[in-house]
C-alpha cells in the first residue's frame, strides 16, 4: 500500500477507527478491574455518567475540558461510593450488583428531565478528533502498562490469583480493590465523555445490557492479562462486522460463537495466542543457536 493510498484508507475508515478507540477505552475499564481480580462492570454505568454529565454541561455553555473533568470527577466519586458499598462482594455477586448499577443509571437517565428522558441529549458540539482519541488511548495504555509491571504488577497478580495470600505479603487488599474500581470507572467516564463530543448525542438505550456484553466480549476476545488485549479486542469486534458484511444479521450469533471458542480454547485471548507464538519462536531460535556456535569452533 502506497502512502497516499494508506491516507485514503484511513479517511474511508475513520469512523470505524474512532469507534474502536472509544470502545478500547471502555474495555480498558473492564480489563483494569478484571486484571486485579475485581469483577466489576460498573465502567458502563460510568460511561453513561461521563457522557451525560459532559453533554449537560456543554449544552449549558461549558468548555469541553472543564465539562469532561467534572464528568470524570462525578464518575470517580460514584465509583468510590459504589466500591465502598459493594466492598464485601466478590466474583459473580459483584458482577451482578454492578450490572444492576449500570441498568439503574440508564433507568435514572431515561426518567429525568435534565438528561432528556428517553430521547436523550443531542446537539452537543463535536470537538473530539481522531488525534485526540489516539493521544488519550495511548496515555491510558501507558498507565495500565505501568500497573502490570514490577512491584505493582506482582501485587495485582496475587490479588487476582489468591486473595487470601495477599495480606500475608503486606498487600492492602481493601484499598487496592477500591483503587481498581475507581480507575475502572474513570476510564469508563473518559470513554463516555469522548463519545458524546465525537457523536454529539446520546440516548439511554446506548448504555444498556448490550454495551456491557459487547465491551466484555472485546476484553475477553483480546485477553484480560494485558492492556493490549482490550485494545486488540476493540478493533477486532468493531471491524469484523464490516469485513464479514455478507453475514448481515447473523453477526451477533457469530460474535457469540467467537467468544465461546476463545473462552474454551484460548483463555488468555488473542494476546495469549500472540504471546504463545512469540515464546515458541524464541525457544526454536534458542535451540538452534548453540549448535550454530559449535560448528565453527
Amino acid at each position, binding site marked *: 500500500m502506497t502512502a497516499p493510498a494508506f491516507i485514503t484508507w484511513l479517511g474511508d475508515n475513520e469512523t470505524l477507527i474512532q469507534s474502536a478507540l472509544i470502545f478500547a477505552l471502555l474495555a480498558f475499564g473492564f480489563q483494569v478491574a478484571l486484571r486485579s481480580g475485581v469483577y466489576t462492570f460498573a465502567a458502563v454505568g460510568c460511561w453513561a455518567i461521563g457522557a451525560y454529565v459532559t453533554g449537560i454541561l456543554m449544552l449549558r455553555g461549558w468548555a469541553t475540558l472543564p465539562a469532561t473533568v467534572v464528568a470524570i470527577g462525578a464518575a470517580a466519586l460514584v465509583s468510590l461510593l459504589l466500591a465502598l458499598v459493594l466492598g464485601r462482594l466478590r466474583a459473580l455477586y459483584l458482577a451482578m450488583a454492578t450490572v444492576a448499577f449500570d441498568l439503574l443509571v440508564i433507568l435514572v437517565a431515561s426518567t429525568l428531565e435534565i438528561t432528556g428522558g428517553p430521547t436523550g441529549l443531542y446537539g452537543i458540539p463535536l470537538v473530539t478528533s481522531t488525534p485526540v482519541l489516539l493521544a488519550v488511548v495511548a496515555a491510558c495504555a501507558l498507565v495500565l502498562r505501568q500497573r502490570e509491571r514490577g512491584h505493582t504488577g506482582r501485587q495485582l*497478580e496475587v490479588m487476582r*490469583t489468591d486473595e487470601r*495470600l495477599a*495480606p500475608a*505479603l503486606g498487600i492492602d*487488599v*481493601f484499598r487496592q480493590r477500591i483503587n481498581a474500581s475507581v480507575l475502572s470507572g474513570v476510564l469508563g467516564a473518559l470513554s463516555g465523555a469522548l463519545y458524546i463530543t465525537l457523536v454529539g448525542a446520546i440516548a439511554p438505550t446506548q448504555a444498556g445490557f448490550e454495551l456491557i456484553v459487547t465491551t466484555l466480549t472485546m476484553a475477553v476476545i483480546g485477553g484480560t492479562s494485558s492492556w493490549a488485549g482490550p485494545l486488540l479486542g476493540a478493533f477486532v469486534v468493531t471491524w469484523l462486522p464490516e469485513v464479514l458484511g455478507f453475514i448481515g444479521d447473523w453477526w451477533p450469533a457469530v460474535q457469540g460463537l467467537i467468544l465461546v471458542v476463545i473462552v474454551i480454547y484460548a483463555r488468555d485471548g488473542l494476546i495469549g495466542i500472540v504471546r504463545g507464538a512469540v515464546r515458541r519462536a524464541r525457544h526454536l531460535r534458542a535451540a538452534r543457536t548453540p549448535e550454530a556456535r559449535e560448528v565453527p569452533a
Partner: protein
Amino acid sequence: MTAMLTVEGLKVHFGGVRAVDGVDLELEQGRLYGLVGPNGSGKTTLVNAITRVGPTTAGRIVLEGRDITNARGHELVYAGLARTFQAIRLVPSLTVRENVLLGRGRHVGRGRGAGLRGRRAAAARAARAADAAIEKLRLGPVADEYPANLPYGTQRRVEIAGRWPGTPSSCSSTSRSPG
C-alpha cells in the same frame, strides 16, 4: 522480660465451639518454637488469630511492645510478623524470584515521597534482599522456574524465602506433617 511476641488470654469462639480458649504465650527473640497438639485442637486457629487472618473473640496480642490485636492483616508484615500457610501458597504465574520479591513489598512503596529515584533505589534494595534470601535458601538454580515445576519441599523453601528476615522479626507457620 524480653518477650518479642506476647499473647494474653486469646480466645477464638465460633458460636458455641471454643476453638481457642484463653491462650497465653511469650515468645523470645532468637528462638525457634513448635506448637504441638492433636488434630482439631486449634493450632491453626491460634496462628490465624495471631496473624490476623482469622477472627479473635477476646485477648491481646503484642509484638515488640506494639499492640497488634486490631491491626489489619497486611499491616503485620510491616510490623515484622510474617506467616506461611498450611498448604503452600505461591503465585503460579510468577517465577520463584518474583514470588520471593512479593514478600519484599515493604522495601518498596515506603519511600513514596522520595520520587522516582527513591522508588528505583527501593526496588533495587528489594531485589538485593530477595537475592540474599534466594541465596540463603539455596534456590539460586531454580530462581527463574515456575513453582509448579518444583518439588513440594522446594516450593516450601520458596515460600519461606519470601518471608525471610531482613525485615520481619518473627515468622510463624503451621506446617503439614503426618500424624
